[in-house]
């Protein structure tokens, strides 16, 4: 790469060089950053065309979604903001009963962010995209002054081809439908909280951040009567079930004893006064299926690593819209509600 107007190549001294305001200025520094980092990492014909946008050939129905990622710290056990920005949007597309295909990526970088950190995030995005089979075909880059962002923020939007023959949405859920959960809950939220607050845990709890597209598409392709999917991100399992029940105009019952929570996750929740049902996940979803398909659906889910611990945890029933009750571990019953406000650790 040529050395232009006395400036050093922005990536020549990884580890020391940092993002400068000029990297977002639309001039040479930005062009160098795109050429040396983003285009090689995401490597696809749409980016090579260096056009203002990507032209996609997509017949049929398309699912379209967007999400922004502002997680702090940028790296935490099990994942990082880059992988999350890919998986999160991929998962939202999959929840619509669609096969995720193309993403956009918008970056807001804070002046002073080490370029080595940026490289690590971008490469993690590229790895996640390759593993999931999606292409990052267009993007944007802005730099804000030091102190105006937590290192970097990422927005991704994505589109995918709808493969479900029927609408996959809460409105399709009927009384008697069963509630399947794709695996243990709470790991992502606890991993991030432990990293952010520097909690010294006996063993690192790793985020469950992952793409859930493969098992979702398998359920659809193998003809399971799926009424609705919901990924269990912020607000956790509780918010996911309550929201689906509300929109469906139904009540739901879950059995706490059947909801898998790892022992270390539940110990941290207990210490901090958090309900694992409210803790965020990044690679977990619920599938609402017709009762006659439960066994087959679970068998399909368990063939995929990301949902190998899938279980049935309850069902939808006639009743007040959004009323979710849990049978407690000792046999009593309680209401499951959305998280209100932010999760705050308690005093004692």
């Amino acid at each position, binding site marked *: 790469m040529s050395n232009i107007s006395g400036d050093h190549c922005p990536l020549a001294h990884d580890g020391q060089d940092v993002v400068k305001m000029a990297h977002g200025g639309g001039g040479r520094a930005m062009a160098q950053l795109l050429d040396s980092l983003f285009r090689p990492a995401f490597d696809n014909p749409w980016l090579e065309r260096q056009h203002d946008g990507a032209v996609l050939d997509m017949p049929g129905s398309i699912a379209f979604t967007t999400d922004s990622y502002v997680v702090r710290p940028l790296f935490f056990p099990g994942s990082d903001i880059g992988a999350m920005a890919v998986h999160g949007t991929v998962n939202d597309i999959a929840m619509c009963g669609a096969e995720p295909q193309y993403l956009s990526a918008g970056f807001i970088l804070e002046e002073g962010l080490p370029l080595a950190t940026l490289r690590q995030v971008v490469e993690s995005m590229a790895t996640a995209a390759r593993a999931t089979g999606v292409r990052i075909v267009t993007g944007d880059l802005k730099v804000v002054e030091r102190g105006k962002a937590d290192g970097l923020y990422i927005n991704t939007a994505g589109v995918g081809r709808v493969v479900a023959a029927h609408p996959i949405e809460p409105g399709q859920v009927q009384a008697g439908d069963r509630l399947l959960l794709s695996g243990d809950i709470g790991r992502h939220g606890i991993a991030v909280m432990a990293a952010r607050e520097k909690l010294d845990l006996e063993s690192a709890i790793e985020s469950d951040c992952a793409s859930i597209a493969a098992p979702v598409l398998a359920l659809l392709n193998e003809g399971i009567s799926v009424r609705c999917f919901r990924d269990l991100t912020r607000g956790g399992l509780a918010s996911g079930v309550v929201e689906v029940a509300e929109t469906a105009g139904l009540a739901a019952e879950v059995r706490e004893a059947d909801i898998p929570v790892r022992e270390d996750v539940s110990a941290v929740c207990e210490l901090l*006064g958090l309900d694992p049902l409210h803790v965020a996940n990044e690679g977990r979803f619920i599938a609402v299926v017709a009762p006659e398909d439960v066994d087959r659906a679970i068998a399909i889910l368990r063939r995929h690593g990301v949902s190998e611990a899938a279980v049935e945890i309850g069902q939808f029933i006639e009743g007040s819209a959004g009323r979710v009750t849990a049978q*407690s571990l*000792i*046999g009593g019953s309680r*209401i499951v509600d959305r998280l209100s*406000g932010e999760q*705050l650790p308690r*005093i*004692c």
Partner: protein
Amino acid sequence: MKYRDEYRTPDAARAYAEAIARITTRPWTLMEVCGGQTNAIVRFGIDQLLPKAISLIHGPGCPVCVTPIDYIDKALEIAGTPGVILCTFGDMLRVPGTQSDLAAARARGADVRVVYSPLEALAVAREHPDRDVVFFAVGFETTAPANAMAVYQAEREGLVNFSVLVSQVLVPPAIRALLERSGNRVQGFLAAGHVCTITGYAEYEPIARRHRVPIVVTGFEPLDILEGVYRCISQLERGESFVENQYSRAVRRPGNQLAQQVMEAVFQVVPRQWRGMGGIPESGLGLSPAYRSFDAEARFGEVSDREEVTGECASGAVLRGEIRPDQCPAFGTRCTPEQPLGVTMVSEEGACAAYYRYRRQPGGQSHE
């Protein structure tokens, strides 16, 4: 980290519930003192397993809930002072003061930081020698030793930019105050296990004798609570009243003497206002004269000692165990965790919040 599943098995819970039903011959009213116990009771539906003759009423043991509004207002005032960093436990953030809460103050630019331990606040003070770092020291006897330790350390290190806003309260004086109120219905207590890990339970013995109430030091897991209820009812049925220790895996009669020593060095017993219960003599801790220079009230002005006017909120009656949260006309309608009228609806350990989370019917009322 295996420590609790054995205290949550459904068969053992049923066996306890049946044993309680067998020995219960007439109505009894028990109070669990601690908000953590209230939360477990409502979350696991423990009360639903008990015979109808037994009423559990929820005590004042939520430290956030009983902190007087004047202290919240003082914390807000301190947080709004230029150059100050206010450190607090997370669940104080949404407790409403007269005008605002600490979360809103933070959103408007105040430097309010959530810490998990007062020693973290001390670290913040070391990191920012040019800023005034104030720790909001709230809680029962459980938090007092660590809060005392932070002040003790600050004194040893000469950290002059560190101070504490102290609103520490003590459980035994509150139990006495409840028993001495006219119209008291409580016939037996489940005392808070974690508090007793620090203080032991010798102090409860004269209360049990004088007021003829059984007091069972009880843990927080479902089976702990069921066993605590069983022991309490069996004393009542036999006409006995003494202090028993259900939580013997954590509590000894003398308590944790090292913790008591640091508390005694740094704090002294003072009268305190309790939200919902008014002024109770010798029911709180304040800094002892030797540590007065670390008192945020000495630096930022004294907190007034007035009794609170509560308006529509019935949290006083809830904290005294006179009504259940769902018997308040505002419950779940004009008062929700998003729009709380009182602090019992805000705190994780608050009885109203526990009922709202686990018992509410859509539309407001709770289910039985």
